[in-house]
C-alpha cells in the first residue's frame, strides 16, 4: 500500500467509505426495525409512516415471557395497585397475566422454546464439528480407497434441497418415535451439517503439515495423542469457523422444525410466528422474541471473531 496517497486515491477512498456505509445501513435496517419494534408500545407498532421517535418500554418483553388473557373488564383500583410494575404494563394493554390456583405467574412457552433451540443447535453443532473433524482427518492423512468417490458422495448429500425429503423424513420419524423430540432434530441438523463440516475441515487439516504429527509419533506419542495435542490446537481456527456455520444453520432452521416438532421439542423459529395467529397479532411481542433470538448467533460470532477472521481466508492459516 502506498504511504502517500494522491488526491485521486483519496477521492476514491471516500467513495468507497460512503458505499460501505450505505450497504451497511441497508443491511442493518431490518435489524433496527426489529429491535425498535420490540421496545414500542403496541399502538405504535403498525403506524404508517413508522414511528421513529418514541419512549421505549419493556412491555413487549413482559408479554413475551408471560401467559396472558384478554380482560373482559378493566382491573379494579386495588388489583392495579397490588400488581407489580410489570403486571401493570399488561393491564395497560388490556390483558392480564394468567396465574395458577396458588397465585404463581404462568410463564409463556417462549423460554422453553428458546432453550430447545439452544439444546438442539449446540448439540448438533458439537456433533457435526467433532465427527466432521475426525472424518476429515482420516481423509486427509490416510490413503483411503475410493477417497474421491466418497468425498463426492459426502458432498452430494447437500445437492438435494432438504425440504424435498421432509415428508418421507416425517413419516420415518413418526414410525420410530423421533418426531417432536430433541434427538430427532439434533440428528437431522447434524446430518445436514456433517458434509459441510467434513469438507471445510478437510481443507483446514490439509493445510497443517503432517510433519508435526510425525514428529510427535517419533517422539513417543500415539496417533490419538498427536491428534489431540498437535492437530486440534492447529485446527482451532478451522473448527471455530465450521462451528459458526453449523450453529447458524441449525439455529435458523425453520422448515423441518415446523414439520417435525409441535410442543415438547419445538424450537424458536416455528414458535415465534405461531404467536401471530392467536388473537390480534401483537407485533411488538413477535419483534421482542425475534430480537432475543438474534442474540446468541451475534454473541457466538463475536466471541469467535478472532478465529473467524483468519478462518474465513481459507488456506491462509500459515503465516
Amino acid at each position, binding site marked *: 500500500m502506498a504511504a502517500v496517497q494522491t488526491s485521486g486515491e483519496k477521492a476514491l477512498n471516500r467513495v468507497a467509505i460512503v458505499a460501505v456505509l450505505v450497504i451497511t445501513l441497508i443491511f442493518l435496517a431490518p435489524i433496527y426495525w426489529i429491535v425498535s419494534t420490540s421496545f414500542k408500545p403496541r399502538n405504535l407498532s403498525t403506524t404508517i409512516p413508522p414511528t421513529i421517535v418514541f419512549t421505549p418500554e419493556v412491555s413487549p418483553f413482559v408479554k413475551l415471557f408471560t401467559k396472558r388473557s384478554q380482560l373482559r373488564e378493566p382491573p379494579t383500583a386495588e388489583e392495579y395497585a397490588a400488581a407489580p410494575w410489570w403486571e401493570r404494563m399488561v393491564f395497560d394493554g388490556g390483558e392480564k397475566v394468567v396465574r395458577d390456583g396458588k397465585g404463581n405467574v404462568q410463564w409463556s412457552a417462549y423460554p422453553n422454546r428458546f432453550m430447545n433451540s439452544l439444546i438442539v443447535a449446540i448439540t448438533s453443532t458439537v456433533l457435526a464439528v467433532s465427527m466432521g473433524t475426525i472424518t476429515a482427518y482420516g481423509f486427509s492423512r490416510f490413503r483411503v480407497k475410493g477417497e474421491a468417490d466418497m468425498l463426492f458422495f459426502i458432498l452430494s448429500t447437500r445437492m438435494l434441497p432438504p425440504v424435498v425429503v421432509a415428508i418421507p423424513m416425517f413419516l420415518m420419524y413418526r414410525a420410530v418415535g423421533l418426531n417432536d423430540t430433541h434427538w430427532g432434530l439434533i440428528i437431522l441438523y447434524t446430518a445436514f451439517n456433517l458434509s459441510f463440516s467434513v469438507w471445510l475441515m478437510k481443507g483446514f487439516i490439509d493445510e497443517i*503439515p503432517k510433519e508435526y504429527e*510425525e*514428529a510427535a509419533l*517419533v*517422539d513417543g506419542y500415539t496417533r490419538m495423542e498427536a491428534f489431540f495435542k498437535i492437530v486440534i490446537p492447529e485446527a482451532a481456527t478451522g473448527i471455530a469457523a465450521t462451528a459458526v456455520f453449523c450453529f447458524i444453520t441449525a439455529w435458523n432452521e425453520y422448515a423441518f422444525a415446523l414439520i417435525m416438532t409441535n410442543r415438547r421439542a419445538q424450537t424458536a423459529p416455528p414458535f415465534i410466528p405461531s404467536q401471530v395467529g392467536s388473537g390480534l397479532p401483537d407485533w411488538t411481542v413477535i419483534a421482542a422474541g425475534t430480537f432475543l433470538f438474534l442474540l446468541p448467533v451475534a454473541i457466538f460470532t463475536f466471541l469467535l471473531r478472532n478465529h473467524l477472521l483468519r478462518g474465513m481466508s481459507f488456506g491462509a492459516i500459515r503465516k
Partner: protein
Amino acid sequence: MAHIQLKNVTKKFGNHTALRHLDLDIADGEFFVLLGETGAGKTTTLRIIAGLEKPTEGQVLIDGVDVADWGAAERDVALVLQQYSLYPRYTVRQNLEFPLKSKLRRVPDAEIAERVARVAKTLRIEHLLERKTDKLSGGEMQRVSIGRAIVRKPRVFLMDEPLSALDAKLREALRTELKNIQMNLGQTFLFVTHDQIEAMSMGDKIGVLNHGHLVQTGTPNEIYNNPKNTFVARAVGSPPMNLIDGKLVSGRAVMAPLNFELPYEGAANGNVEGRALTFGIRPEDLVVESGAPVEAKVHDVENHGVEKILTLRVGDAMLRATVPAQTHLAIEDAVRFSWNPEKVVLFDQKSGNSLKHAG
C-alpha cells in the same frame, strides 16, 4: 547406540517404485550420509527406518532385531527435518520437553529440567528457552530441532536435509557443530542430503542413491576417487568429474569424437584396447600449462578465492579445471592442458560402470 540394517527393501507408492531392493548397513556410531537428488528415495528410506512408512518388501533391523511390527514410538529414533519440525504454539522449552513427557518414557520432572538445561547449554539456546518457536530464526529453529532430538538420547538420529533451508554461512557453521555433536555423543547418525559438499564433509560413509537404487557406498574418499559409475562421478564433487568419450590405443587415450590424445598410465586390465570407453578426470587433475599436448579455449573463469575454476572449450565439449588463484587468464584465451595420467578413471561407455569396480 544402534546398528541399522536394511535388507532387500522395496517400497512402492501405487505404481511408483520409490526404492528397489535396497541393502544398507549402518554401523554403530557411524555418521552415514545418504546422498541423492530429489525423488531418489532418500526421505523414503529415512521414513521406513523411523517407522513412518512400512516397506512393501524387505526387512529393517535395528541391532539385529526385525522391527517390522514396531511403531514409530517404540523404535526410539529421533527425527530432524528441514522444516516444520518444531511444534508451533509451544515455547522452545516445551518443545524440548515434549519427547520426554511421553507416557512411553515417564521421565521424572527433575530429570526433564536437568536434561533440557544441559542440551540448551550444549547448543547455546539457553536464552531462547521461553520464546515461542515462531519467533525464532531459521538457524535457531534447527538448533532447537537438533536439541529436541538429543534430549531424548535416542538409539539413532535421522536427519532429513536439516541444513538445506538455511543460508550458506549458517549451514557451514551448523555442519561443523553437528559433526562435533555426533563425535561427542558417539551415536549413529543417518543424514540425508542432496548436497554433495555436506556429504563429503560430514560423512564417515556415504551412500549414493539414484532412482531408488543404492549405487555405491563407501568412505568419502572412495566415492570421490573411485566412483563406481558415471552417475556417481557426476553426483559427487563440485565441479563434477570431467567425462570424455574415447578409446585406449596402444597405451594412449584417444578421444573421439573430440579429436585429441593423452597418455594413460593406469593398469589396463583385460582387453580394454579398442573398447568404447569414457575417461573420467577430476578438475584438479587437469593440468593447464604451456607446452601441454592439447589446445583449448577458455570459456569461463570462476574465481573462488582459494582457486579458480576454468571452463575449457575443446571442440564443442566443456571441461572443467581448477587452477591456482594467481593464474591470470581471460575468456577466449588459448591455453594448453594435459592430465595427471595416474588419476584417470575408466568407465565402460555403454554401461557407464567403472572398469575397476567391474573386475
